[in-house]
């Protein structure tokens, strides 16, 4: 049977872009799907889209389907260079330049290998010289960002692992990292955790996310926890960055102005954590640093 052809559009990291990603997920969310991704309409691809599409490809493969990225359809030079530099194209059967530019490598982590992930954050994400921070502040940032990966491995139940990609945007002076899993999603996990109460089904995704982001909230019945998201939230606020989470039919956004939790009209099984940091060294100081 001929594969289903899916056109990858230009994808940024706004709400509509995530909606398009989740629509692509819904078109391929079945067993025995054979999919061909056509890139002829794609003129820009942010790291959230790269991580999502990479994970989606592995999800399709794990469901006994096949995935082909048709590289012959890719005409846009910016996308071509970016996917080559960040290793995505190389992971899916095409060219890989080995020159990383302002790209931060696409990576797939089937299992939680803390040292490998932290090395990546240290050497490729923060350690490229575009964020001028002291070594101990670099370590603090890495510790907080590691919490994203740890949460994904601890809570999602994703059988295919965790997918991530980053980028440094020179003109906006922003450093971005997206971490994606195709596990059950935070709202679903919260509802299951609270399922002894029949009203758990009435909990909205926004309500579940709001609870999950509170200090000390944990869905582990037998382990201490519930600090990772809280620590991350605090860190992002101090640094005037932005933390966005899409999970099931919920959306959370944290920035210096506050927190926002919403229900969305499109859903996917999994979680995307998208963090944007500003590369302004004045924001990244310890109390005793001059």
């Amino acid at each position: 049977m001929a594969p289903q052809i899916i056109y990858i559009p230009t994808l940024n990291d706004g709400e509509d872009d995530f909606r398009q990603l989740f629509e692509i997920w819904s078109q391929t969310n079945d067993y025995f799907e054979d999919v061909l991704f056509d890139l002829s309409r794609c003129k820009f691809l942010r790291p959230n889209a790269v991580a999502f599409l990479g994970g989606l490809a592995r999800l399709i493969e794990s469901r006994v389907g096949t995935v082909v990225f048709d590289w012959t359809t890719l005409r846009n030079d910016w996308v071509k260079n970016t996917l080559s530099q960040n290793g995505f194209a190389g992971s899916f059967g095409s060219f890989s330049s080995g020159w990383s530019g302002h790209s931060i490598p696409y990576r797939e982590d089937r299992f939680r290998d803390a040292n490998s992930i932290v090395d990546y954050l240290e050497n490729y994400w923060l350690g490229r010289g575009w964020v001028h921070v002291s070594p101990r502040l670099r370590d603090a940032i890495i510790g907080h960002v590691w919490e994203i990966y740890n949460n994904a491995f601890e809570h999602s139940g994703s059988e295919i692992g965790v997918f991530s990609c980053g980028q440094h945007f020179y003109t906006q002076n922003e450093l971005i990292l997206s971490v994606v899993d195709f596990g059950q999603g935070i709202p679903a996990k919260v509802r299951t955790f609270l399922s002894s109460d029949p009203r758990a089904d009435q909990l909205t995704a926004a309500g579940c996310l709001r609870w999950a982001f509170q200090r000390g909230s944990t869905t582990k019945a037998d382990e201490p926890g519930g600090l990772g998201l809280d620590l991350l939230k605090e860190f992002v606020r101090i640094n005037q960055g932005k933390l966005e989470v899409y999970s099931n039919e919920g959306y959370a956004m944290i920035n210096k102005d506050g927190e926002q939790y919403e229900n969305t009209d499109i859903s996917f099984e999994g979680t995307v954590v998208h963090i944007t940091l500003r590369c302004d060294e004045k924001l990244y100081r310890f109390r005793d640093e001059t």
Partner: protein
Amino acid sequence: MKTTIKEMIGPRCIIKEDGQKIYDAIHEVLQKGECVTLDFKDVSQFASPFFNFAIGQLLKDIKEADLRRLLHIENLNETGKMVVERVIENAAKYHGNKDYRKIVDDILAEQAKAAS
């Protein structure tokens, strides 16, 4: 008893399994009422899963005041201190019985507030 974390764990204290190793090494000693010193010299990266298991778990059967008297922490950087304090503060909440009904009440109340 003094434990040098760098030797036992390495320069990164970020995962729960390493936290469990520390817990296993110090729990009984502290239960006997003996002092323990954890030396974090040359440890630079910290995350909550490590401290939840290394220290948060201790509060299951050791009172916070006793823990603060018996457990001495040396050479911990500012980030590590912040995470440890947060873990200790959070542990009391965790070790109390989970009131699922109250959690659902709270989420529903917040939902209603957001909708109004």
